[in-house]
């Protein structure tokens, strides 16, 4: 009797946890959708022209007209933060897309093919992984010159090996499975085996890593912009906005707090979504 009760309590707890995780997934997905909608329709949502300077209104503290205040050029900070979402979020998504696609492609190829070419590419990825990432990105961005696209390329150069190693490891664990052998025996070509049988089975961890990486990449892109190697003026981008406002932290703190808060919230939302996706894709959760 007692054992039965314990079982029913455990099942109920597990169900409650599953429900909570699902709820979190919906909430964080909704928040991400909200952020993406804000970024996509930024130019329609801004209350003022984010690039229009009015030196007569410079450095106004938050008030009813300018909810987040104005910067030293008299530009509305709320408008710039909204507009900055476009540059910051989309460039981060683009970066994660690039590194996950390239890294996964390389990992799939190396894991499936094996041999000398695998060793060679993995040693190259070891070289990239051995470098301090941000330092290398600064060097690459310095060579390529300023601009948000160059910053994306610089970070892409250093970030793909993580996905390559992850995908390769996953491929190695599934490529000797019976269903792959069966596919080979039935005469499937390697491309079909990779894309139809291996890739769908290794997508879970890659998806989780990619989602968790969005926040990290956003921070790194903002870091490059903060150092003057990302977005060029007058583009509204959160990292460069923080850089422009840092000398005013003690005198006009809203100039740096507005974009800083935007980065904090956005990175947190993407990280929480990544965590939740990981929980949802966890085999224990499915059971």
């Amino acid at each position: 009797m007692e054992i039965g009760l314990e079982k029913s309590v455990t099942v109920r707890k597990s169900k409650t946890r599953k429900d909570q995780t699902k709820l979190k997934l919906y909430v964080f997905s909704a928040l991400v959708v909200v952020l993406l909608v804000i970024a996509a329709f930024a130019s329609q949502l801004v209350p003022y022209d984010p690039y229009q300077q009015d030196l007569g209104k410079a450095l106004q503290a938050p008030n009813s007209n300018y909810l987040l205040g104005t910067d030293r050029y008299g530009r509305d900070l709320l408008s710039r933060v909204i507009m900055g979402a476009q540059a910051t979020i989309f460039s981060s998504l683009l970066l994660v897309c690039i590194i996950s696609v390239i890294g996964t492609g390389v990992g799939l190829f190396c894991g499936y093919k094996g041999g000398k070419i695998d060793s060679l590419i993995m040693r190259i990825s070891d070289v990239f992984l051995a470098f301090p990432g941000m330092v290398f990105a600064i060097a690459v961005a310095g060579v390529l010159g300023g601009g948000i696209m160059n910053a994306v390329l610089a970070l892409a150069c250093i970030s793909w090996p993580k996905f390559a190693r992850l995908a390769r490891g996953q491929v190695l664990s599934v490529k000797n499975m019976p269903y792959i052998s069966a596919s080979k025996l039935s005469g499937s070509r390697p491309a079909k085996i990779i894309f139809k049988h291996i890739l769908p089975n290794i997508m879970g961890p890659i998806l989780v890593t990619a989602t968790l990486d969005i926040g990290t990449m956003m921070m790194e892109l903002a870091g490059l912009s903060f150092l003057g190697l990302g977005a060029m003026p007058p583009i509204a981008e959160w990292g460069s906005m923080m850089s422009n406002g840092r000398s005013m932290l003690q005198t006009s703190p809203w100039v740096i707090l507005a974009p800083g808060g935007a980065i904090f919230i956005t990175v947190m939302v993407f990280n929480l979504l990544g965590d939740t996706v990981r929980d949802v894709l966890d085999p224990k959760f499915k059971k």
Partner: protein
Amino acid sequence: MKRKGKLLALVLTGALAVGMLTGCGNAGSTKSEVEKEFNYGTVAYSVSNSNTGLNPHDSYSGWSTVRYGVGETLFKFNAKMELEPWLAKDYEQIDDNTVKINLRDDVKFSNGKKMTGEAVKACFEDLIAKHDRAPKDLQIKSITADGQSVTIVSENKVPALINYLCDPYGAIVDVEAGVTADKNVVGTGPYVATAVSDTEINLEANKDYWGGTPKVGKVNVKSITDGDTLTMALQSGEIDASQGLPYASLKLFQDNNDYTISSCNTSRVYQAALNYNSPVIQDAAVRQAMAMSMDKDGFASTLLQGNGTPAIGPFPANLIFGGDKVNASKYDIEGAKKVLEAAGWVDIDGDGIREKDGQKLSVKWLTYTSRQELPLLAESVQASYKLAGIDVHVNATDSYKDFLKAGDYDVFANAFVTTPTGDPQYYFTTHVVDGSDYNQGHYHCEKVEQLVAQLRTEFDKDKRNDLAVKIAQQVVDDNAYIYASYLKMSFVMKKGVTGFTSHPSDYYEITADLDMN
């Protein structure tokens, strides 16, 4: 017996407490010169400013030699930028090409050696053999020394020779003592460098200084190129004074009883050189519109927060040939639009940027970030030029020299001290004539060439001033340069610091008058 013991313990405890308090409480005591140590943070000493080290015969390092009290020149400028003797007593112009300078008899180098005519001769000979700008400025043919005087004969007439000798490259150092591996020299100033690096100079008072004993025993000059770090270093007490604080931080120290500020207007001008090699800049209407679209008042009053004065020409108003002696276009966006329309630049596709013959009116604005004002100017013109229909691509990079070399710019904005020698010739010969070192716009004008040639040989002060105004006006009329603002320089220091005063020349900082109370 017990009572005695208690009494003794009490007395001893009291004595200990008094002793401790006396040891801690030095507020009322006065420090001797040797004990006083002055820590000075500055953004102006850095590799990117080409002034590291103390060898005046190397690039702009002479600025550091003079700024930090290691070296002195034969003559100097007062607060009105008028010439005054320093290591020299006086001079006489023998003829158009010959000047005889009489030296003070009481000056010693910091190694105890007397400063004689021979030592000065050797120093100048080393200068013209090694320095990049000095030979062109001074045009020295020969130098002869006789006791405490030197006679300089020039190749050509050099009316501003004495002014040029006030340039920090003219600091007198003992060349026999040489230059150490860490770029240290032996000068005549109130301080002697004990250690020199690219980020810090440690100085000690020169006990045998001819101008009196310095009041502060040690001075440490620290290069702090990040404005926020500099601000916090001053707030935390790590440094006693600073130069080059961000304007946003300056107001933290204004109306604050714990700090004092010494400010003065300088001849450091923020200017934009328009590249005549660029096809779009060759259009006079574009240059005119660019000059009319720069909001100089807004830049000086708002972005520089009042720490600048809107500029008209290259020279500020405190100079007799500067200020409103020259006329320039006023800020007028509507006027700029008309000028461009008349020249055929029209916005056909409605994107706000004008086109002509299928080409967008777009300019590449090259500048650097080590002067905090320049990126602000770039972003300010980016917005105001857009109102006139001109697109601006800003390239703010500290590797700007590569872009200059490649010619990859339409405009180069920089900061430059136009009258470090109190004379206009220096600016013109370095900026507006063929082959001049900083003519980044490749500007050429026959009239300007002729006027500068006259200026080079004119001794009469009034005529020189007239020529300076004429040349500046022609440069402004051609819109070869657009002058945005002059810098107001500020030193911020702890309340007890005295004798540390900003100077319009921008290169007199640490002197024997420096004191800490």
